[in-house]
């Protein structure tokens, strides 16, 4: 700021004007729509996400039985990829539902992460 002009006299006059413009009614006017939006946003977002996850889970009846049966096997080799494919068949679940869950979760995360970026 050393190279910039000094204009403290005028700045003081502008500051006095700004102080005169302070008004609680304006603060309320700004905050009202923000509070209103926040009230419905979180329930709506998490409600929609919850519905999506609930719908997906309802399609995965056999999941936990199969997971329990295979829990001892903690590592798998590349050669077992085909076995994994059979795993999905064994569940009787359309893998599309897992994709749907991923989309819902990623979408919710993206909304939350970017809305005030």
């Amino acid at each position, binding site marked *: 700021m050393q190279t910039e002009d000094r204009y403290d006299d005028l700045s003081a006059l502008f500051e006095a*004007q700004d102080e005169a413009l302070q008004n609680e009614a304006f603060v309320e006017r700004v905050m009202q729509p923000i509070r209103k939006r*926040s009230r419905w946003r979180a329930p709506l977002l998490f409600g929609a996400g919850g519905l999506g996850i609930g719908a997906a889970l309802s399609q995965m009846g056999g999941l936990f039985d199969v997971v329990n049966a295979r829990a001892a096997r903690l590592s798998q080799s590349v050669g077992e990829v085909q076995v994994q494919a059979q795993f999905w068949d064994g569940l009787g679940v359309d893998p599309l539902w897992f994709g749907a869950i991923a989309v819902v979760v990623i979408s919710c995360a993206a909304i939350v992460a970017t809305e*005030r*970026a």
Partner: protein
Amino acid sequence: MRTDSDLARDAASGEEVAFETLVRRHHGAVRGVCHRLARHAAEADDIAQAAFLTAWRKIGGYRGGSFKAWICTIAYREFLQARRKQKPEVEFDESAHIIAFDTSAARLSDQMDLDRALKTLPENQRICVVLCVASGLSHSEASAATGFPLGTVKSHVSRGVAALRKQLAAENVA
């Protein structure tokens, strides 16, 4: 007292109370910028409100430095957007809700002189004076906000300040 940066960080994580404190601290300055740039008080308050709502959405993008300069830059951009949308022949709505301001504590005659003097400046000069002198932006920040070259901003501020001083001095003598 919590700093603006602390409050902005908390606001970015969704804390409305932190943002409200920032609004309370800076709304005078933001309304001031808008009143100096816009044609009417009601329009100025609409722009100031829009600036704060944009700031709430973009608060995660605040990277420190002067919060006042950051929010005043947003207010200036909102002013430009509002002006682009305006039709030239639009009549001022006299019935629009205007939030009054308290003049009792301020130096009313000085303010009126200042307003009058400011209005006589060419628009680009007035913009640079409002951003740099009234809102505290550096010349570089004003250059980034307005898109004017740095040298142009310096020249506008220098001439604008000189013209304001000259007019205020003349009015005080008269």
